[in-house]
C-alpha cells in the first residue's frame, strides 16, 4: 500500500526534471522561440477579438466603410467589396482558421495514433492489414481525395475538417507504429506481460506514454499542413460561405474580381496571416524535434 502511494511521487520528480531540461534546451533555439512568439501573439489576438470586434464591423449590411478602398484613415489595411475593414476581418478570421486547423489535427492524431498503435501491437495479420490500408491511403493524391470527400459531404467547416483528417492521418500512423515496435521490444513490456497485463493495458498504460512525445511533435507539423489545407479547400469554394476565415476571404476576393481590380491590400493580409501561422507551427515543431532527438543537432 505504501509503495503504491509513493510511486506517483517518485515518477513525478524525474518528469519535472525532464520538462525543465526540455525547456532550457528549447530556449536555446532562437527559431523555435520566434515561432512560439508568433503563435502566442496570434492566439491571444484571436481569443481577445470579440472584445473589440462586434457584429457592427462584420455584418455586410451594417458596415458603412468605403467599398474596396486602398488603406485610408480608419482602415489601415483598406476595405473589402462590402466596406468591411480588412484588418478586422483578418483578426476575426484567425478564430475559425485556427480552430479548424486544431480540431482537424486532433482528429488526425487520434485516428493516426489508434491505427499506428494497433498495427504496432498486433504484429500478425491485423497489423499487416492496417499497414496495407495506410499504404493505399498514402498512394492516393490528398487534395483530389479531400475535394471529393468534402464535395459529397456538403459545404461547411465540418466536412472540411473530416476531409483533412481522412487525408492526413497516414503520416502519424506510420510514425506511431515504428515507435510502438521500438517500445514493445524493450524488457519492461515483457515484465508487464509476465505480471499479467492484457493487450489494452500494455497499449494504453505502457506504450502510449512512451509514444506521446513523438505524437505531440508530429502534431505541431500536422497543424501547419491542416491550416494550409483548410485555406485551400475553402478557397476552392468548399467552406461555409457565411463564415470569415482566411481562406474564405481570399475566395471572396478572387470571386469578386479583386485580382483584376489590382486590390493588393485585400489579397496580401490573409495570405501573410496564413504564412505566419504555418511558419510558426513549423518552426516550433522543428525546434521540439531537434531538442527531443539529439541526433539531429547541427542539422
Amino acid at each position, binding site marked *: 500500500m505504501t509503495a503504491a502511494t509513493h510511486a506517483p511521487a517518485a515518477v513525478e520528480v524525474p518528469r519535472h526534471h525532464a520538462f525543465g531540461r526540455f525547456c532550457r534546451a528549447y530556449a536555446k533555439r532562437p527559431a523555435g522561440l520566434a515561432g512560439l512568439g508568433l503563435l502566442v501573439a496570434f492566439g491571444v489576438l484571436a481569443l481577445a477579438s470579440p472584445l473589440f470586434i462586434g457584429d457592427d464591423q462584420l455584418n455586410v449590411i451594417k458596415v458603412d466603410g468605403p467599398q474596396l478602398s486602398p488603406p485610408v484613415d480608419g482602415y489601415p489595411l483598406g476595405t473589402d467589396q462590402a466596406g468591411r475593414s480588412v484588418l478586422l476581418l483578418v483578426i476575426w478570421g484567425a478564430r475559425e482558421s485556427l480552430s479548424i486547423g486544431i480540431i482537424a489535427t486532433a482528429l488526425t492524431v487520434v485516428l493516426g495514433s489508434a491505427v499506428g498503435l494497433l498495427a504496432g501491437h498486433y504484429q500478425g495479420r491485423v497489423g499487416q492489414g492496417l499497414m496495407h490500408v495506410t499504404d493505399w491511403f498514402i*498512394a492516393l493524391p490528398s*487534395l483530389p481525395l479531400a475535394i*471529393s470527400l468534402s464535395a459529397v459531404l456538403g459545404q461547411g467547416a465540418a466536412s472540411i475538417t473530416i476531409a483533412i483528417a481522412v487525408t492526413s492521418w497516414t503520416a502519424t500512423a506510420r510514425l506511431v507504429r515504428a515507435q510502438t515496435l521500438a517500445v514493445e521490444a524493450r524488457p519492461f513490456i515483457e515484465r508487464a506481460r509476465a505480471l499479467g497485463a492484457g493487450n489494452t493495458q500494455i497499449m494504453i498504460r505502457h506504450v502510449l506514454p512512451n509514444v506521446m512525445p513523438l505524437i505531440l511533435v508530429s502534431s505541431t507539423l500536422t497543424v501547419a499542413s491542416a491550416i*494550409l489545407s483548410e485555406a485551400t479547400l475553402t*478557397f476552392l469554394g468548399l467552406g461555409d460561405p457565411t463564415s470569415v476565415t482566411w481562406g474564405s476571404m481570399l475566395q471572396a476576393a478572387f470571386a469578386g474580381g479583386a485580382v*483584376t481590380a489590382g486590390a493588393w491590400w485585400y489579397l496580401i493580409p490573409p*495570405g501573410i496571416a496564413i*504564412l505566419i501561422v504555418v511558419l510558426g507551427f513549423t518552426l516550433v515543431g522543428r525546434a521540439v524535434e531537434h531538442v527531443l532527438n539529439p541526433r539531429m543537432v*547541427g542539422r
Partner: protein
Amino acid sequence: MSSLTAAGPAKVKGQGVKRSGFLPYLGSKLAAALVSFFVTLVIGFVIFSLMPADPVRTLTRGRPTSEAQLAQIRVQLGLDDPIWERFLTFVGNTLKGELGYSWQFQQSVSSLVADRLGPTLLLMGTAAVLSIALGLWLGIRSGWRHGSLFDRIASSASLTLWSVPTFWLGMILLVTFSVGVGPIPSLLPAGGMSDPSLPQEGWTHVVDVARHLVLPCLTMVLVVFAQYVTVMRTSIIDEMGSPYLLTARAKGLTDDAVRRRHAVPNALLPSVTMIFMHLGVLVSGAITVEAVYSWPGLGYLTYEALKIPDLPLLQGTFIVFSASVIIMNLLADVVYRFLDPRVRAQ
C-alpha cells in the same frame, strides 16, 4: 523491398541471374500498382456512389419532377440494383474508359478529360522538371556545406515558400505581373492558355502559350521545389559520414569531384523515391494553380465541377489523378533499379 534484398545473392552468381531478377521485380511492382488502383476504385465508389444521400434529388434540383419521373431516373442510373452489382458495373465501365456523363457539360467525362489532359501535362511537366532541377541543385549545394550562409539562406527560403498557400502566391504574382501594381506595368497575360485573337498555329501560337505558361509554372515551381531541397539536403548529409567519401578524399580527389562522382550518385537514390512520392503534391498544386490562372487543364475542370457540384465529373478527375500518381510510383520503382550504381555496374 523484399525483392530488392533478394537480388543480393543473385548478384554474386553472375550477370544472367541478375538480369532475370528484373522481371519478377517488375511483376511484383505491377501487381501492387494494380491492387492500389483497385482500392482507388473502391474508395471512389464509396465516396461517389454510396455516400451521397440522394443523387436523383441533386440531379433534378430546381425542376418540378413527378414521383414517376424520379423512379424512372433511379432505374436509369441503376440506383435500385444491389450494391455489388453497381460496383461491378462501375469497375467494368471504368476499365472500358467510360467514366460517366457530366451533369454540367452534358458530355461524357472521358472526352472532357481527354481534352484537358494535354494542358495539364504541359504545365505539370514543365513545373516538375524545373523544380526538381532547382531543388536538387540547391539541396546538394546546401547539404554539402550545411551550416554555411548559403545553406541557411536556401533552407529558410524553402521553409518560408513551403508555408505559402499555392493559390495565394498565384494571385499575388497575377496582380503584380499581369494586372500591374504601381510602377510595374502589365507584363504577362492574366489567364487561360492562349489568346483567342491570335492565330492558333505556328510560332506565334507557341510563343503565346509560352507567355501564358510563365506565371502558372513559376507559381508551382516556387511552392514545390522546397520539398526537393529538403529531401536532397538530408540525403547528402546522411552520406557525409560514409567511409567511401574518406577514401575518395584520401586518394587525392578534389572536393568538387568527391561531391559529384561519389556523394551525389549515392544520395540521389533515396531522393528519387521521395521525389516520386511527392508528386501527389504536384497534382494538388496543379488544381489550385489552374483554378487561379483559368489554365484549361484537369485541375480547372475539377474546379469547375466543384461549383455545381458535378459528381460524375469529380469522380472522373479523382480516378484520373489517382491513376497518374500510381503510375508515377510504379515508374519510381523502375527508375530506382536503373539508378542504383550497384545494379548499373553489372
